[in-house]
């Protein structure tokens, strides 16, 4: 078992990383003074991982869309009871989520964390799928798919991704479709489980009112050693260009909403973190409420305070998204594109850059003030192949020239797409 203490020289925060003999990476952050505990047991397996193979497989296996999310639902059922019933005995609040590139099982509690941790480690390592339970889940997930399709924020986002990506599975809905989940059976679930729920592909992240020694003792007790089977996931070849520049959909909404995004080149690890931070700074500059563009759009009644930005990235995809409410989204897009061109031509104002950098630093410090955020930060950074405090270091070293370089390289007008949800077309 290798144990490393990770520290942030800037804030003084620290956490422990352990490479457990079972193969699992474990992150522990003791947070004195806090009452709660947040634990996440995650696997690097999300909706985009539909093609994979392991040592000894000659061919790639392709599985139906939505299977990672389906598996997450089913893992909550043990052979003899439901996992929620177990948490009910400790008082913890249990949950799980599936995103594009990860699935995580979590609990938050303030008492009996040791017992809740045993439950978490135990049920995630103990799958139980039968034809009957799989059939029943198809109905429940079918309803979830309908509910998310009624969510305009969800629709506008996926419509944008479909405009951007030709082949990459990031464009498919996390839960799949009613048709794709109908192809899922118990055997396929076991196949995916045995591939992705190998401890070498997983991470445990726990923060709050805990003792690292206690956590490690429970891990020693509950983790079953896994052989690293050399998991390999692949994605279809994705062209650099976009599919189409815009898409409109009608839904019952009170306010029309938009997602405008630049399709950028994807990258991994430290490079992805660096580019993400640069993207975050330049998108914050563009949506900064004190900028001339923002003020003009606001004054003309084209945007409101919902206008904001987000960097969205993972294995094989990297986009910078601008979102908000507007009756004239085309004007927002055109103003954004023009402002990007102006900045590329004239450069980034050093004073504004330093101000946005400070603002981003403040956000990162605030994150360390919250048990849930710290647990998520440790898990996410591990899955992104970086450290939990690396973002603060990367930020402190970034120059305006770096940010401008990202903009020049990544914000190309022909890779700009717009998705709109409006009440009437």
């Amino acid at each position, binding site marked *: 078992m290798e144990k490393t203490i990770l520290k942030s020289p800037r*804030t003084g925060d620290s956490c422990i990383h352990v490479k457990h003999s079972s193969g699992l990476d474990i992150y522990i952050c003791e*947070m004195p*003074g*806090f*009452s*709660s505990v947040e634990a996440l047991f995650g696997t690097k397996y999300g909706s985009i991982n539909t093609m994979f193979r392991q040592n000894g497989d000659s061919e790639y296996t392709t599985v139906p869309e939505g299977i990672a999310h389906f598996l997450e639902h089913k893992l909550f059922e043990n052979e003899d009871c*439901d996992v*929620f*019933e177990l*948490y*009910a*005995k400790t*008082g*913890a*609040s*249990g949950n799980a989520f599936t995103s594009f590139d990860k699935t995580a099982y979590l609990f*938050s509690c*303030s*008492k009996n964390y040791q017992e809740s941790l045993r439950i978490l480690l135990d049920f995630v390592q103990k799958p139980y799928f039968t034809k009957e339970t799989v059939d*029943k889940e198809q*109905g*429940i997930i079918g*309803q*979830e798919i*309908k*509910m998310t*399709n*009624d969510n*305009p*924020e969800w629709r506008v986002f996926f419509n944008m991704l479909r405009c951007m990506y030709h082949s990459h599975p990031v464009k498919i809905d996390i839960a799949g479709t009613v048709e794709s989940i109908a192809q899922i059976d118990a055997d396929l679930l076991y196949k995916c489980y045995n591939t992705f729920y190998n401890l070498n592909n997983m991470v445990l992240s726990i923060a*709050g009112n805990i003792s690292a020694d206690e956590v490690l003792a429970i891990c020693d007790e509950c983790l079953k050693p896994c052989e690293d089977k050399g998991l390999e996931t692949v994605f279809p070849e994705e062209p650099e260009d976009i599919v189409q520049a815009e898409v409109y959909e*009608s*839904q*019952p*909404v*009170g*306010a029309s*909403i938009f997602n405008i995004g630049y399709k950028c080149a994807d990258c991994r690890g430290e490079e992805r973190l660096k580019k993400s931070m640069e993207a975050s700074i330049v998108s914050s500059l563009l949506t*900064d*409420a*004190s900028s001339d563009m*923002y003020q003009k759009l*606001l*004054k003309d*009644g084209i945007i*409101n305070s*919902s206008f904001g930005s987000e960097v969205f990235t993972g294995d094989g995809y990297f986009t910078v998204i601008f979102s908000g*409410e507007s009756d004239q989204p085309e004007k927002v897009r055109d103003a954004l594109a023009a402002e990007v061109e102006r900045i590329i031509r004239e450069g980034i104002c050093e004073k504004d850059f330093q*101000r946005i950098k*400070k*603002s*981003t*630093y*403040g*956000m990162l*410090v*605030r994150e*360390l*003030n919250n*048990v849930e955020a710290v647990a998520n930060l440790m898990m996410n950074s591990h899955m992104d192949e970086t450290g939990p405090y690396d973002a603060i270091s990367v930020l402190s070293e970034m120059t305006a020239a770096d940010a401008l370089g990202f903009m020049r390289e990544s914000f190309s007008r022909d890779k700009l797409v717009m998705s709109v949800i409006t009440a009437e077309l």
Partner: protein
Amino acid sequence: MRYNRTELAGNIGFSSIIDEKFKTGSLTVRFITELSGEKAAANALGIGALSASSARYRTLAELNEKLSSLYGAGLSTFARKRGDVQVLGLTASWICSRYAIDGEDVDSEMLEMIRGCIFEPNVKDGAFDADSYAITKKDLLDRIDAELNNKRGYALSRAAEVAFRGEPAEVSCYGTKEAASAVSAEEAYKAYLSLIKDSQVEIYYIAPQEDDRVLEMFRDSFAGIQRNSGKVRFENISPVKREPVTESDVFDVLQCKMVMTFKTASEDSAAMKMLSIIFGETPVSKLFLNVREKMSLCYYCACRYTQSKGALMVDSGVERENIEKARDEILRQLDEIRNGNITDEEIQSALLSADNALTQIGDTPSSYSAWYFERFCEGKVITPEERYEDYRMVTKERIVQAAKSLSLDSIYLMLDKEVKE
């Protein structure tokens, strides 16, 4: 943690919550007034204008530039509803000075900014500055429009309208779009002045260390204001309708929503809360295990109890053909409780769930602020531990009585377009 509440003047309370573990300072000022259809929109605009500019930072651009230079400090305003009461406020948070890279005194600068926004708004000739006000107004109108974008939230709002018809609580915390459209910059400023002078005010300061300047700033600022504030009534039990009513709207949606409102005159709030947890607040509740898991009738089916109105709402996402079945099963599960079919395990797990939630209070500045404000509204400051003791003393018989005291008042349905009624 050290909690201390000081009465600054008539109906102005200042609560200081000092907890060394935080890296941030935060401050929330709540103006509390009766909710009314006439004034709700003007009040929301009067408060909203305070975060758009101030006498010192005369545009949103200037204000935001200053906030982002203070390490992305947050400053925003809000309008909420709590039963028959409208709670309007300004909230701010910032990283403490000791984390500032360039040694800025962030704490002092934020205190000054908050003072300016609340007590020295951007006003000319008895009206909010026209440009800033236009931004505030558009924002509120858009927010009202955007309520429909969140179908579950919209269904709950419409259900409250139906359940509390004729009472202040039927009004949205933002007022109506028509009312908001009609409010001028002058009227919004008058509404702001009225809030400053006539409303109850509760201030919550949460930080890692004491700073007497915060209390002094508010004491001095309010000293110059002629106050004429009365006390609002926080609890107004809603009468149950003679016959349950059902109202519906039709939208182009895939999943229908059903919200059932039950009402009670029971004063046993601890038993009502325990009932609510057992009935539908957790994944081992009767509604989740039966209506969702066993019968697959709804994707979600949960309940919430609003003590200030004596109302318990069950909301669900349900397919059109299952609405009746789901309604019957929800009623049947309530009857189960009324008939005493509650296990010791259910009571124990409800207690554990409540205990965990209560013990987590204090892990974020906002949870402290919300906890102490709610206790202020209830008229008695108690600790989360004391609240847990209240729950622990609830017997099965009291839960049964609480369930028996509930009557179905109304049902709101959001229906899909396919089906003609």
